[in-house]
């Protein structure tokens, strides 16, 4: 059984994003494996544990530095990695085509795990584009996963705590939500062992991808301004609350 996991390398959510020029940012910051993709790896590891012949392959499209996030996936237990390298900012159209090409050049996927969203682009869509180009079904925001007789049964989180249960045949794509599992923390030996695991590198340009007929580019980037009043209301509790209500009604007009 071949289990593929798509992992993206993203800026640490605690890092400061310093905008450079019109649409770039200073990339000399810490990059991490996209947090949702850790849930994808964890689920892949749990599936592998039930199947002796299963192999988990982490696939990443990104700059040379993104190899660090593939290392994290290997430290969590993935058997090997495939790194499609590019210096360009790639959109979800190209990413999906690159993931497809890299996966099919490697083997026939039985199942592909992804995260439900990347925390940098927040696109919510790469897995669906991958599903469309591979012609396989996709479930997103998955909170429970079970596999029996080649049929995946998944719980997906819906609005206001609701859930939907879907069934789909393999091969399929499972996009992990946060409630799916608790990702394991690699130990030091895990990290050491991961250094010996193979990572295959493929240049994006060498994949001979079809030219997408559509695309999305970031043409501008600006800080989200926090233009807040910062009015700290003084007085006793009673007074402060009365003043707060007055301000909310008369100044901000939201009550």
């Amino acid at each position, binding site marked *: 059984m071949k289990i593929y996991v798509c992992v993206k390398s993203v800026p640490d*959510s*605690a890092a400061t*994003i310093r*905008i450079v020029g019109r*649409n770039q*940012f200073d990339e000399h910051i810490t990059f991490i494996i996209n947090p949702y993709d850790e849930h994808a790896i964890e689920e892949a590891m749990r599936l592998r544990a039930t199947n002796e012949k299963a192999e988990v392959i982490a696939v990443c499209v990104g700059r040379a530095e993104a190899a660090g996030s593939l290392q994290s996936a290997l430290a969590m237990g993935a058997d090997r990695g495939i790194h499609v390298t590019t210096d360009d900012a790639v959109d979800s*159209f190209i990413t999906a085509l690159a993931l497809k090409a890299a996966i099919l050049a490697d083997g026939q996927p039985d199942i592909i795990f992804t995260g439900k969203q990347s*925390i*940098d682009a*927040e*696109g*919510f*869509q790469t*897995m*669906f*584009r991958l*599903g*469309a180009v591979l012609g396989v079904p996709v*479930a*997103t925001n998955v909170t429970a996963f079970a596999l029996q007789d080649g049929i995946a049964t998944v719980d*997906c*989180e*819906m*609005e*206001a*705590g*609701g859930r*939907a*249960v879907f*069934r789909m045949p393999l091969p*399929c794509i499972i996009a992990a939500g*946060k*409630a799916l599992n608790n990702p394991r923390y690699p130990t030091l030996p895990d990290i050491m062992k991961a250094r010996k695991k193979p990572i295959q590198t493929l240049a994006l340009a060498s994949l001979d991808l079809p030219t997408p*007929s*559509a*695309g*999305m*580019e*970031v*043409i501008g*980037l600006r800080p*989200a301004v*926090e233009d*807040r*009043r*910062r*009015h*700290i*209301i003084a007085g006793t*509790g009673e007074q*402060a*609350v*009365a003043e*707060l*209500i007055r*301000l*909310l009604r008369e100044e*901000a007009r*939201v*009550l």
Partner: protein
Amino acid sequence: MQKIGILIETRDQRVKPAMYGVITAARGPERELYGLVFDGRGREYKDNLAAYGISRVVAVQSENGMIAWNPDTWAQAIVQVMEQLEINILFGLTSAWTKDIFPRVAAMLDVPLVLDCLRVDIDNLTAEKSRFSGKTIATYKLHGSHFLFAVRPNVIEARQAAGTAQVDAFTVRLDHERMTVEAVEQDPAARVDLSEAEIIISGGRAMGNSDNFQILQQCAEIIDAAVGASRVAVEAGWVPHSMQVGQTGTTVSPKLYIACGISGSVQHFAGMKTSEVIVAINTDSGANIMQSCDYGIVGDLFEIVPLLTGQLKAIKNNE
């Protein structure tokens, strides 16, 4: 005339209030707005939708009547409606439903999609959305034959536009299902989805336990608010994950966000920083949230929130 489709979300046989801001965002000269309704109704919504500028209500159904929820078949149906009615722009609300349908439609048509837009410029085919967990706003330029936009609830204020609408049924032919739906369960206790609420009162680590959330609930009932939480409160098991606001929870943009005993981490802010007004109640005047709020009260939430509830109740009773 440019034809724009809008996926109309309903709850309990009513158009979700946040839809009207989405319709407002899609409106413009030389544009014809089509409201796509999937819940088996249409005529019932006509007047409300027309009041915001929709001129054509399309009641989408299959040969067997109403199309039961299945993201794969709904997406197929939307693609057929768009192709047959020559709609090349589709709008919707950012919600759990659109996060499951819009990317399918975009992938089927191989066209661009921006989910969770803060602003859309239809003439230039650009859209603004958060990037890097709310720290920056990115402007996207889209290229393609069709364009999909899902707008964050409450970021665009609804404005009425006089108009009338006609209702047409549209019957789609559904292909085989690639995924089957075994069950759909909505939590009956959940009143409004957090992301659509106009007022949210949230509790963090300082809440201490599950029972204390009652204090927030009591206040919420008076001002018709939804109750949210920080990740700490969720991970401690005090409240369900559906109540978590933030980078790994729900993104919200209410008129009023009241944070009680929440320090204001980057990850929490990622989910609520586009709120119109932020109020912080915190014992620590140096807490992060005090630097990024509109109104702050330095105090113990167990004293302040009940006072707030009491005073709001008194005002409500007098009005």
